[in-house]
């Protein structure tokens, strides 16, 4: 399948998800279950994407483990996104030097 077709579908779906409620929808969602579901979705999605894929992200389990540990610790102390992301990467790189 041509890559352009994939990109068109990706971009189209992503745009519609943002555009439809932003442009047309004015009412509030009433269902408490659905509101809660939408509240939890980002965390559930990001976690399912990250665990366990992050352990295979750097092509080496040990360096990935070091990066993950640093990310978890820094995130626990509420450090900014960039700091967490770059420190994890640095930790994975430095660990790789010793293997």
């Amino acid at each position, binding site marked *: 399948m041509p890559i352009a077709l994939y990109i068109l579908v990706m971009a189209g779906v992503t745009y519609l998800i943002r555009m439809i*409620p932003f442009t047309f929808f004015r009412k509030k969602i009433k269902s*408490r279950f659905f509101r809660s*579901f939408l509240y939890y*979705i980002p965390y559930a999605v990001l976690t399912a994407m990250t665990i366990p*894929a992050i352990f295979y*992200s750097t092509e080496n389990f040990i360096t990935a483990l070091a*990066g993950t540990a640093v990310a978890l610790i820094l995130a626990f102390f509420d450090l900014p996104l*960039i700091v967490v992301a770059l420190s994890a990467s640095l930790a994975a790189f430095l660990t790789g030097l010793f293997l």
Partner: protein
Amino acid sequence: MRSDNRHEFLRGMAHGIPISLGYLSVSFGFGILAFKLGLSAFTASVISASNLTSAGQAIGVKVIAAGGTLLEMVLVQLVINMRYSLMALSLSQKLHPSFTTGHRLACSYGITDEIFAVCSGQPKLITPAYMYGMILIAAAGWITGTALGGVAGEILPDSVSDAMKIVLYSMFIAIVVPPARKDRRVLAVVIAAAALSTLFRYVLTFVSEGFAVIICAAAAAAFGAALFPHEEEKEAET
């Protein structure tokens, strides 16, 4: 009125600078990831310019690399980006009257987690010029970083580019951990999602990665919604 617009546009750009810098480094990781999956720097940049979202793109290029179906792509993007609907809904409540349908159609493109967070933190109503300024500078950072990452993927030694591929995932950790630490209900949902995802990875291996993410996320969020219905005022923070 014209100078007002100019002022609002510049204010939006100023507020967008930290977002842009963050995007620059994260999308650099995306560029490298895309390169490792066999996509060119140009293709990766087109994806970044047309999608402007981290998680959706990260899983999207995996679906492309794995030769997944278009239906899988649609469902993956729907579930992963569904949160934007809620943000768009919330933002639509605090738009300045000058926000015509045309402006809404254009600004919809730029509703990301970070832009939403900054806009909803504004005490004033949001004007189109303010959002355009912020989206412009944020998207510039996102696209530039992707292009640089895609090119760097070819140049950098594997030891560096492999280490950079953890950037996106660690950003997700940085988004999830602080609320999970403060709110046990979020923590329960996160643990459920991690457990399910691990199960799919090692046991239910016949399910493709994209669908596994959808099933795990929907099940964990439904579990949370059924057991711990969420109070309304927290909604805006997602």
